[in-house]
């Protein structure tokens, strides 16, 4: 189990070695990157299933928690630790023109993302989050070089993303400072042990709000998502797919971990519900007005992430389960849609009659958007049903509003997706013919990704019972605070930890006495 740390270390090493290797042999550098990804996948698969009953944690370097840094592995973190290398592999730029630094940045992204989901330490999460942020700014900025997109747009989008992202990181840092002032520790399990008495107050709530907004920049949360259309419009669809599919979910996972472990107050959930439903409604409204596919998908992604936040804001394990369902569904479907949209750039009205030319692609697209919309019996329907049912059963007024917003947003979503389908299946007009022939063709790799996702969706429909069981057990494990604490501190006496914190409290009081003298 200890070798799981390699999924962070190997890509990190590769990221910095690859540019050096490329000086002697470019092929060697690329092969190194790919093999590191394969090794990561094998490592994760070798421990797959061992944490179903009991999560595992280990202290890095042998320093014991709470001062030592721990990795915490449960079903949730293992699932995402697997999803990261798999998705990076899927969206690996295979062509020969890509500069080596893009591969290097992708490895950095893999390393930091894996660290982010595995880490059990608040400050470590901050460091990995920043690394992830820097890697993604870099990836956005280099896009202009290796594609047909305008270089200036990629740079400007990257800078605007960087400024917003850095403000977010500073907010997160201030949130961490507040938490440290209140509790005096950074280990998540230790924090969780002390949170009910020390963070269940206004200071704790403000720390949560700061962290929510700060990390929310990556998760496309409502007030801090202005970068989304700019970045997705300026970069290749491959990177958009990776960012919308994977990176946004990682940020969500971080928020959920902190929410479950540190912030017991119901106001925290309600804050998330409010921001989530505003995201749903604004995202879907702008998507409705957008004139091209990529922009529509970007804003629909904001809406879907809002839905994820609404789902997670439902109290209890059932909310976690609904959240995982809709997040994982979006993780699969949105990249596939971006891959299909890659071949359909240009205004939507130019797409009329495309279904005649390429019936298979059009059918695939319809299947995917039907699942995104939630047409039964596709998986998206079950995810949305779970949210709607549980929102309806909540008594707090904010959840009734959320329910209304989610339903309205679904109608809007249906309206614009239906419009696209109508355009696709319209009879092609003769005068449009030359324009269509200028449409780029879909790459085979893009199509196979989308097809694979469609197959997965169908399999999920057939296997809905085991999926539900798996999600329930994942939600229960994630929602179990005591399990987390016991796992990390299995060898330590919990009363010792409480007394340590009391000692600090004592010192602080002593200091105040001295100060008043």
């Amino acid at each position: 189990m200890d070798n799981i740390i390699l999924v962070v270390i190997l890509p990190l090493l590769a990221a910095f070695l690859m540019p050096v290797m490329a000086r002697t042999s470019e092929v060697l550098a690329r092969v190194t990157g790919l093999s590191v990804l394969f090794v990561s996948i094998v490592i994760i698969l070798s421990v797959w299933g061992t944490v179903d009953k009991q999560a595992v944690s280990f202290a890095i370097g042998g320093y014991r928690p709470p001062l030592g840094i721990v990795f915490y592995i449960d079903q949730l973190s293992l699932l995402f630790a697997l999803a990261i290398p798999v998705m990076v592999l899927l969206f690996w730029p295979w062509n020969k023109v890509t500069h080596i630094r893009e591969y290097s940045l992708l490895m950095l992204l893999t390393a930091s993302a894996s660290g982010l989901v595995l880490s059990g330490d608040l400050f470590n999460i901050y460091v990995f989050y920043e690394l992830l942020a820097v890697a993604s700014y870099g990836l956005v900025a280099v896009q202009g070089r290796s594609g047909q997109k305008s270089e200036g747009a990629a740079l400007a989008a990257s800078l605007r993303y960087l400024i917003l992202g850095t403000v977010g990181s500073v907010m997160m840092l201030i949130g961490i400072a507040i938490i440290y002032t209140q509790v005096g520790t950074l280990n998540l399990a230790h924090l969780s042990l002390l949170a009910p008495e020390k963070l269940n107050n206004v200071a704790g709530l403000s720390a949560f709000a700061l962290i929510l907004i700060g990390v929310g920049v990556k998760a496309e949360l409502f007030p801090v998502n202005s970068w989304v259309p700019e970045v997705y419009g300026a970069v290749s669809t491959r990177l958009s797919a990776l960012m919308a599919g994977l990176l946004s979910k990682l940020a969500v996972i971080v928020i959920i971990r902190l929410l479950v472990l540190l912030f017991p107050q119901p106001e925290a959930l309600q804050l998330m519900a409010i921001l989530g439903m505003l995201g749903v409604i604004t995202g879907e409204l702008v998507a409705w007005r957008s004139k091209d596919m990529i922009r529509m998908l970007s804003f629909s992604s904001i809406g879907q992430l809002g839905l994820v936040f609404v789902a997670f804001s439902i109290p209890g394990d059932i909310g976690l389960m609904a959240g995982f369902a809709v997040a994982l569904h979006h993780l699969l479907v949105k990249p596939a849609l971006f891959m299909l949209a890659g071949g359909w750039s240009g205004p939507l009205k130019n797409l009329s009659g495309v279904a005649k030319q390429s019936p298979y692609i059009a059918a695939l697209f319809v299947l995917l958007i039907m699942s995104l919309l939630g047409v039964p019996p596709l998986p998206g329907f079950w995810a949305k049903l779970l949210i709607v049912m549980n929102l309806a059963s909540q008594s707090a007024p904010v959840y009734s509003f959320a329910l209304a917003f989610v339903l309205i947003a679904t109608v809007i979503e249906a309206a614009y997706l239906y419009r696209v389908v109508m355009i696709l299946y319209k009879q092609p007009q003769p005068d449009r013919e030359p324009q269509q022939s200028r449409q780029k063709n879909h790459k085979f790799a893009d199509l196979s990704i989308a097809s694979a996702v469609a197959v997965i969706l169908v399999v999920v429909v057939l296997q809905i019972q085991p999926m539900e069981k798996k999600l329930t057990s994942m939600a229960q494990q994630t929602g179990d605070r005591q399990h987390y604490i016991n796992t990390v501190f299995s060898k330590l006496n919990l009363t010792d930890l409480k007394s340590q914190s009391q000692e600090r409290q004592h010192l602080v009081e002593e200091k105040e006495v001295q100060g008043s003298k």
Partner: protein
Amino acid sequence: MSMPGIEIVLYTGAIGLTVIGLAGLLMVRNVFRMLLALVILEAGASLLLILSGFWETGVAPIILSGLSGNTPGQLMNDPVPQALVLTAIVIGVGVQALALALILRIKYQYNTLDMDKIRQQLEHDIASNAGVASPASAQSPDSLALARSGSMESAALATGDKHNG
């Protein structure tokens, strides 16, 4: 409870720096000045973090005489936030360097440092990437300026390549 004087000064300074940074980000349009505001904002946050482990009467967190070192009455400052701030500063410097590099490249490309103009140009470029004409650029007086900067862009590109080579 009364707080020691120096702490009030430090807290005021930290919050003041944060506010100055945020205000700068909201009010300034020049991207380089926005970056400077970001630096100030980060400094404020770092100071806040340091203060979470700072006691006015505290001594340096170094154990001098054996493990039972610190004499009663002498409190150590908490070393953990200091280590964290060190990390945060290093990350901050990295991000600022990246931002500076981006600003330089944008200057070559768009020939402006004004955030509003950069945003307009960005929207224009995204729209033309997607093949959808931007609705604003058709009527706005900036469309002329954009067309001009387009020709300058190619010149700037040449300079940029020279710099790179």
